[in-house]
């Protein structure tokens, strides 16, 4: 026993000294790795000007500026702890499938390809870009943490409305009223706090408390612990707000693995307004949207990231509800929209793409607007301008160069949308079958039908080929479950039970 204890102590001393030595980091080795792996974005001399930089928002960090956004040292200590830099390089705060780096950025996790020592070596090297030393003040502590409760969340909500809503929006979807730029003049979009999987770090109350207390250096996200600022919040208020943020996560909008949008059968009228209470009965499904980086003109700096859909159908029609978070309501000609837009204000827009003919086999039209052999229908809704109302367009495309605009009204296609606190909701409705059978999709119950989506944020310079999109998923007009599905199991229960009784009687004799 003694011996074991002794060796344990020796081992931990060894480990600790390795750790201390590791924290030193070897600058030379750090540079070698940096020059192979990091300079492409952060630049040869760390100035954030690598070849990839032009195509990224947020841009790769300028490491010569010495600001680290996600640090644990207090607001009046600009130097981060070495552990902070180490943690952000390592990554692993995974929120999005596949992506384990900083969500919403191109900064990946490096813990899978670089050994722990190598990551410390890089820390030592990149600190030298800005001549950072050791921080004079240690990390903030969490000893007064307030556990989440209804009361704490309620109080946090009050504080949020007063202190955070101007940037993060009334309901936290990042739809504030201010145009924000970082210290280097790059456009920043305040985080949509209802989508924790897009957080750079995490939505643990401690992480959020850290961001609120220390601010996000280099951006307009301020520190709320600074007693000299007008925005000071007490320790208690900061914990309450953190608990509130955790509580507003909207998991419905988080894309999962499923790829089938199931339209439910309704008897009677289909909802054609976005706020019809019937929608709450429909199954919803969410998809990631990625920028169009496949065909000319490519688009690299999106502001939208996912879309949620629901659908109903009856004997005559189909009705699809699309819902997506957009920080800005973009109405060309509107003064308020202009203040916050990046460049000219264009219309917001959303589109559904469907094959003209439901494929019999696996072969579908090319996911990017069809191909010469297999055309697609595109239903595109536009939000309208100050002097023009919303509108729906019907397009038939055989590839993006061969697009024909058709009369939407003739097919009974209609659409209408409402913007509210950072979310667009749009309903599109059409008859299941139309007159021009060769040109329009004819919906059929029970058939797996390819479907894809696209959206445009007009305040982010998006129009034409510059937009976000999904590739093919599925739409299924889900048939009503046959009665036998419930009936047969019931019979099985009775038969098995009868068998048991017979068995028991037989045994007793």
């Amino acid at each position, binding site marked *: 026993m003694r011996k074991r204890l002794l060796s344990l102590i020796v081992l931990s001393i060894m480990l600790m000294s390795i750790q201390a030595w590791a924290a030193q980091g070897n600058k030379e080795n750090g540079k070698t790795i940096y020059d192979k792996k990091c300079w492409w974005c952060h630049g040869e001399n760390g100035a954030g000007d690598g070849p990839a930089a032009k195509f990224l928002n947020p841009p790769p960090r300028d490491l010569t500026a010495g600001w680290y956004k996600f640090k644990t040292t207090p607001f009046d200590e600009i130097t981060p702890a070495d552990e902070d830099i180490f943690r952000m390089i390592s990554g692993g705060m995974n929120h999005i499938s596949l992506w384990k780096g900083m969500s919403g950025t191109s900064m990946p996790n490096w813990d899978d390809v670089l050994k722990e020592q190598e990551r410390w070596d890089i820390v030592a090297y990149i600190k030298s870009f800005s001549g950072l030393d050791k921080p004079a003040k240690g990390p903030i502590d969490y000893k007064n943490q307030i556990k989440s409760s209804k009361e704490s969340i309620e109080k946090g909500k009050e504080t949020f409305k007063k202190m955070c809503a101007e940037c993060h929006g009334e309901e936290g979807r990042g739809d504030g009223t201010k145009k924000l730029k970082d210290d280097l003049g790059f456009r920043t979009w305040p985080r949509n706090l209802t989508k924790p999987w897009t957080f750079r770090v995490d939505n643990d109350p401690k992480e959020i408390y850290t961001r609120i207390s220390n601010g996000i250096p280099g951006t307009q996200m301020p520190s709320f612990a600074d007693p000299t600022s007008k925005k000071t919040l007490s320790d208690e208020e900061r914990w309450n707000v953190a608990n509130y943020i955790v509580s507003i996560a909207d998991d419905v909008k988080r894309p999962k693995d499923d*790829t089938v949008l199931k339209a439910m059968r309704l008897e009677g009228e289909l909802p054609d307004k976005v706020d019809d209470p019937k929608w709450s009965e429909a199954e919803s499904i969410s998809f990631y949207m990625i920028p169009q980086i496949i*065909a*000319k003109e490519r688009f690299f700096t999106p502001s939208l990231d996912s879309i949620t859909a629901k659908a109903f159908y009856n004997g005559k029609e189909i009705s699809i509800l699309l819902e997506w978070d957009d920080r800005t309501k973009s109405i060309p000609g509107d003064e308020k929209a202009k203040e916050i837009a990046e460049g000219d204000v264009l219309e917001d827009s959303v589109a559904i793409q469907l094959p003209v003919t439901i494929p019999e086999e696996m072969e579908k039209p090319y996911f990017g607007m069809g191909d010469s052999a297999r055309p697609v229908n595109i239903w595109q809704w536009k939000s309208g301008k100050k002097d023009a109302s919303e509108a729906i367009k019907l397009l038939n495309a055989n590839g993006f160069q061969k697009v024909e605009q058709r009369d939407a009204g003739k097919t009974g296609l209609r659409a209408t949308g409402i913007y509210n606190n950072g979310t667009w909701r749009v309903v599109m409705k059409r008859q299941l079958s139309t007159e021009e059978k060769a040109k329009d999709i004819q919906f059929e119950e029970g058939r797996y039908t390819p479907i894809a989506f696209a959206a445009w944020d007009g305040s982010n310079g998006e129009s034409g080929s510059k937009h976000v999109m999904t590739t*093919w998923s599925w739409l*299924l007009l889900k048939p009503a479950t046959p009665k036998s599905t419930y009936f047969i199991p019931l019979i099985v229960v009775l038969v098995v039970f009868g068998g048991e009784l017979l068995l028991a009687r037989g045994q007793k004799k």
Partner: protein
Amino acid sequence: MKIPRLLLFVIIVVISYGIFKAPGILLNQPIPSSLIVMYMFFAVVTTLLWITSTEKDMQGLVGPIKTMIQDPTKKTLRNIVFVIVPLVAGGITYTQLKPSYEAPVELRSIHPAPPSTVKAFGKTFNLATLVNPYRKLEKEDPAKFTQLVKEGGEVYFKNCFYCHGDKLDGKGHYAHGFNPLPLAFTDIGTIAQLQESFVFWRISTGGPGLPKEAAPWVSAMPVWENFITEDEVWKVILFLYNYTGYAPRSWEK
């Protein structure tokens, strides 16, 4: 000590179920449920045959059940079992009958046979004889070669990393939006298996350049002849091999 036969039977059945379920839970590659049902059927039958091979073991299996039914002191247990068994049977039937509405399974060939000639950049290339014009510099002029690799890297970090990843591991920051996923060049199953001429074909003509068996209509791989030059394609190929440390497959192998 001999494990009671009934218990043994239950243990084996549970373990087999665990094994069939494991790929789905651990590797995210589930065995289709219809197959599992079939495997389980065989597992149950085989175990039963094995356990009941001797009369004594047969008794061990049936004995406890008999006692439960006949022994008046076990009445409560019997009643409970008699209620649970039919309900479980009903439940299983229901899950079997319930329509599932899972997405159709689609198979595509990842590395289809290449065409013999490829049209790109306004020319026709014969893939059988096509070589990377810069490959020979690796030995002849290492300094120039290093420079070309770096230029290839710049092409990569302006055009490809969104999908194929900063680490060439197929996990770019937009990769999660695509199905099929962008391929990982660090995997031994991609460029390490390919000749440079094949890679040249794939980059120049992208997803739409694929033959039917590779489902060109779903591949998000862009048609790069529309964006970069022939020269840049060869350079980015140098970079892909250099960064991952693989050598292109050559004719001799």
